[in-house]
């Protein structure tokens, strides 16, 4: 664990150092190149911003509407058949929408159910393996101004749903 987290801490500074030193060795005007590249950042964010705004407003509205609790009460029964604790469902449903909310719920589950409980482990695996799909879609599609997404959204949502079932199966097998 210690070595892995050390490598992870090292990798970004090492990468930046490498870029600068390597550039200097190849006689690149490193500072001028950096500034020229960084100039493009503003344009990228200007492209993304309206998409991010749309997604964030929609997600927050969804969370505040109480719709979440209604969906949860309908899904709790069928998921019980797979042996998925009801607390985990909140994490699984919120993770594609909001990363920080999912982490918050995960912390809550760890506190109430204990860090070695099935609910904590399963929600931990879900938080670690499912991405905040809508954020990724908004940022990546927004950055190039794609408007027609074909079947991309259903594919991502099906994958998220499958991911939850895979997580349940893997946790059952490995703990």
């Amino acid at each position, binding site marked *: 664990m210690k070595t892995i987290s050390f490598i992870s801490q090292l990798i970004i500074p090492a990468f930046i150092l490498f870029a600068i030193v390597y550039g200097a060795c190849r006689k690149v005007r490193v500072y001028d190149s950096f500034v020229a590249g960084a100039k493009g950042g503003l344009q990228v964010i200007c492209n993304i911003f309206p998409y991010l705004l749309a997604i964030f407003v929609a997600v927050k509205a969804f969370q505040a509407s109480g719709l979440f609790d209604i969906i949860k009460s309908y899904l709790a029964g069928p998921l019980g058949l797979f042996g998925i604790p009801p607390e985990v469902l909140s994490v699984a449903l919120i993770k594609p929408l909001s990363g920080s909310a999912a982490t918050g719920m995960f912390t809550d589950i760890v506190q109430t159910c204990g860090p070695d409980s099935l609910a904590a482990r399963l929600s931990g695996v879900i938080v670690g393996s499912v991405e905040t799909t809508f954020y990724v879609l908004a940022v990546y599609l927004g950055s*190039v101004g794609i408007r027609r997404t074909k079947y991309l959204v259903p594919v991502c949502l099906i994958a998220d749903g499958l991911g939850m079932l895979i997580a349940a199966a893997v946790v059952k097998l490995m703990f």
Partner: protein
Amino acid sequence: MNIVWIILVSVSIVVAACTGRLDALTRAMFDGAKAAVEISLFLLGIVSLWLGITKILEDAGIITRIARFFKPVITRFFKAVPPDHPAITSITLNLLANFFGLGNAATPLGIKAMQDLQSLNADKDTVSYEMMLFIVLNTASIQLVPFTVVGILSAYGSTNPAGIVLPTICTTVLMAACAVTVLQLFRRFKK
């Protein structure tokens, strides 16, 4: 995305009206707008930083070298990308950053990859298969160690916080495989 957004917003408003949470809903939407500004400002700094760093590498001529090195793996998935195209490098760097859990570096590199893929896209308004594949691989987020999760588990006194690592990797790899399969099934049936 159009349909998803219409459903998310309109259903939320109707449900909030039924459950008497309209006040909270309005506040939440303004909160969402504020959060979007905060995230964008944060991204502005971090994206510019990484665009600067990758520009140095590009000018030093290493981008093509990295591309050549990872070409065999990446071109197997991204068949329509020419072997010496910069997209191969940006896709590689993004996937590596994801793998090491460097979310702050992964997003800017992913944006770069999308722009590189867009330069190959015939119809600029419509997503290409390569873009979909790239996004699907990203949403499956293959990660070596989920640091936040391990951190929270050990903070609350788990007997074996790192025990979560292996199941997470297994899940994420299986999920990525499923996601790519689903994408290919859709591609076949929508033709």
